[in-house]
């Protein structure tokens, strides 16, 4: 894409770019061209080399071989500062924000040091409003939700007036309406002649807004195409190498007994940054997949904590598992009643990164599977063989790809570790499973595997609660949908009766205007 032939060479041109870590090639002879005013998609599974490539473009990593040309001239990008001077802005997937600093201070750090802070605060407010991403410059980042944090990153990149903006999975934390505004923002950037490198797993999005797509697999380019001329299936095939299985949804209507019942539970915020839960009620029956949609930071983690018993509630009758009051039971007590839980954070919450997979398996199930994993009664001697074989079983059922027999959890890619963590719970065949953000930052192949496993569990007669921000995922697997907003849970609706727009309104907390849909269950 050129403007009146002036810009004959592409904005960014990469030839034969490679990055070796020891003998492992994270990127292997990558070619990439990004034109002026082009929205270019970078597709690939986790571990395909996308982030390594992007880090080299942004000067965080140095390439082992190959060349980078910027506006036709070969350049070396030794540091992010140099990348910014060239005109590259970056919005990281794992936010590079400083929690203890304010929004304005965070932005100031990447701008010209001579600009006074007051002016930056002012510009932040103006630009954020102009691009539809409102932000309070004086708020501390620690007090903000994930979605708001991402806005800071975007605004920060925009304030540097870049020619190329790299966005890593930008819509994963936005409502459909917010995503819509982001697309408008991107279109505007494009109209201003800026280019965008857009990393995403969401093929529909890529097809809608991107002009070109480069697909990576195992560090190599496996596709260079116009995404609008492809189908989601053909794009997925380039990414995964094989067809991604479509998730077979459970039948709606044929539900059994109520396995989980939450009645008017309110929880006061535990920390200054938490959301209070207000009068939450829900019922999930055998065979049902209840998806709880909502924008990050609206009480999802607090609801998960209450459901899992990580932080028990004061009202014992407030939560019932298979008819038994469990409100005051802790997580292991609830596990013993046949429930399983998968929290949102993989590292440090669902798994200890430095420990092996088998140790992580033991940590989660040492109480609920005492008989299988521990010997010697009160001595609690570990039965290594049993634990290892269970760990291997989980890995083979869930297709966990790893190096070595029992590697550290931290050495697995996000998708593979998530498959293991979900598999760890499924292995117990729980009658109730509560999962928070099951496929956040997980590649398409692994996500489809996890979703199918959740649906299969429900088909086998369990009750499944999925808390998710990913609406595609929700529509793919849910039989029933409720929306959480500001700590309040909407009525549940059968999945087939809700449209994207209606969910969006509920996510924004607009319950009253939403009377057109009938409630799924009589309370």
């Amino acid at each position, binding site marked *: 894409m050129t403007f009146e032939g002036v810009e004959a060479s592409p904005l960014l041109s990469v030839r034969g770019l490679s990055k070796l870590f020891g003998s492992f090639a994270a990127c292997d002879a990558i070619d990439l061209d990004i034109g002026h005013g082009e929205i270019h998609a970078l597709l690939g599974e986790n571990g395909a080399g996308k982030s390594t490539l992007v880090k080299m473009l942004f000067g965080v*990593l140095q390439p082992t071989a190959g060349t980078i040309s910027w506006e036709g001239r070969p350049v070396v990008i030794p*540091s992010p500062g140099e990348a910014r001077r060239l005109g590259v802005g970056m919005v990281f997937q794992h936010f*590079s924000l*400083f929690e*203890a*600093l304010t929004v304005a*201070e965070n932005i*100031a750090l990447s701008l010209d040091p001579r600009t006074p802070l007051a002016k930056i605060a002012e510009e932040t407010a103006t630009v954020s409003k102009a691009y539809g991403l409102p932000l309070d410059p004086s708020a501390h980042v620690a007090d903000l939700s994930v979605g708001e944090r991402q806005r800071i990153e975007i605004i920060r990149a925009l304030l540097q007036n870049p020619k190329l903006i790299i966005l890593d999975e930008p819509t994963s934390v936005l409502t459909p309406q917010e995503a819509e505004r982001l697309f408008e923002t991107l279109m505007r950037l494009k109209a201003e002649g800026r280019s965008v490198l857009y990393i995403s797993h969401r093929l529909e999005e890529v097809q809608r807004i991107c002009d070109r797509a480069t697909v990576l697999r195992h560090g190599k380019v496996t596709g260079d195409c116009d995404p609008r001329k492809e189908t989601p299936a053909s794009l997925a095939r380039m990414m995964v190498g094989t067809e991604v299985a479509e998730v077979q949804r459970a039948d709606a209507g044929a539900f059994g007994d109520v396995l989980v019942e939450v009645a008017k539970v309110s929880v006061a915020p535990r*920390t200054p*940054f938490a959301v209070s839960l207000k009068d939450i009620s829900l019922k999930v029956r055998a065979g049902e997949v209840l998806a709880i949609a909502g924008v990050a930071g609206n009480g999802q983690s607090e609801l998960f904590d209450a459901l899992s018993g990580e932080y028990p509630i004061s009202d014992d009758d407030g939560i019932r598992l298979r008819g038994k009051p469990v409100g005051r039971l802790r997580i292991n007590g609830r596990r013993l009643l046949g429930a399983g839980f998968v929290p949102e954070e993989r590292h440090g919450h669902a798994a200890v990164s430095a420990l092996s997979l088998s140790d992580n398996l033991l940590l989660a199930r040492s109480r609920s599977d005492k008989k299988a994993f521990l010997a010697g009664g009160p001595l609690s001697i570990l039965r290594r063989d049993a634990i290892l074989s269970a760990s291997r079983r989980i890995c083979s059922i869930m297709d966990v790809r790893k190096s070595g027999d029992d590697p550290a959890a931290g050495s697995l890619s996000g998708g593979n570790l998530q498959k293991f963590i979900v598999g760890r719970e499924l292995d117990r065949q729980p009658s109730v499973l509560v999962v928070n953000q099951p496929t956040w930052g997980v590649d398409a192949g692994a996500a489809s595997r996890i979703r199918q496993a959740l649906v299969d569990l429900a088909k086998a007669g369990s009750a499944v609660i999925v808390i998710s921000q990913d609406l595609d995922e929700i529509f793919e697997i849910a039989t029933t949908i409720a929306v959480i907003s500001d700590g309040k849970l909407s009525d549940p609706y059968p999945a087939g009766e809700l449209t994207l727009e209606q969910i969006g309104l509920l996510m924004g907390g607009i319950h009253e205007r939403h009377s057109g849909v009938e409630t799924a269950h009589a309370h």
Partner: protein
Amino acid sequence: MFEAILLTVITASTPLVVAALGELVSQRSGVLNLGVEGMMIMGAVAAFATAQLTGSPYLGILGGIIGGGLFSLLFGFLTLTLVANQVATGLALTILGLGLSGQIGEAFVGMPGVRLQPLVIPVLSDIPFFGRVLFSQDLIFYMSVALVFGISWFLFKSRTGLKMRAIGDNHGSAHALGINVVRTRYLAVLFGGACAGLAGAQLSLVYTPQWVENMTAGRGWIALALVVFASWRPLRVLAGGYLFGAVGIGQLHAQLLAQSGGIAIPSQLLSALPYAATIVVLIIISHNRRTTLINTPASLGKPFVPDR
């Protein structure tokens, strides 16, 4: 009587405030230097020796600053360049400093010291009471007050201070932004060492103008506690430093009173008071989680190795 006690409190508190301020800057950049005691005693011996050899207490102050600063560079080299464990290195620095200073200072034991004389500020010192207490002090006291406000401004108003706080909060992100983490931390460690050296100089030039082995007597550790106590904020260091100084002087007077009154309170019990106060205050402080979260440098004590 009250004025005399207040003057001794100021003299006792100043080294705590100065050393704690230096450590605060170091910790705000994410470096936990447990070697304050060692750097302080090195400053004390360097200051005493310089003053003895030159006859000038002001050159003595300079000697103390340089002595503490140089000694901190050893810590910087070990923890920042060689990425050694900060806790272990800091402890080693303290032990080394105590030993080395004893060796250097052996020649000076028993010598009468050169006392740093007060600088009486004209006009202001004529104010009744406050004039004598606040404006007839020595240079190091004035420097301590200037440091409190200077560091406060630097950390929260200047761009370099912002970068330093950013490094302390998340050194990985700071590096990704192109901030030179290691260089900034070297400067912060050096500043911390210079402050500890200045605090040591105050001990051997003002507090007790002579050289005594181990004359820091645990003040470096109190300064360390003070940094946490003050939740990494300079003005609170000032308040906390004077609280600890007052408790220390108070327990001395209590001991004298107890002795003259014939009441048998074990002196060890009274000497432990400042430390007991430290613990109590730390417990109270740690109650406010949000303040702690916003102020604690999240990457404190973590080694930084940039991926290449």
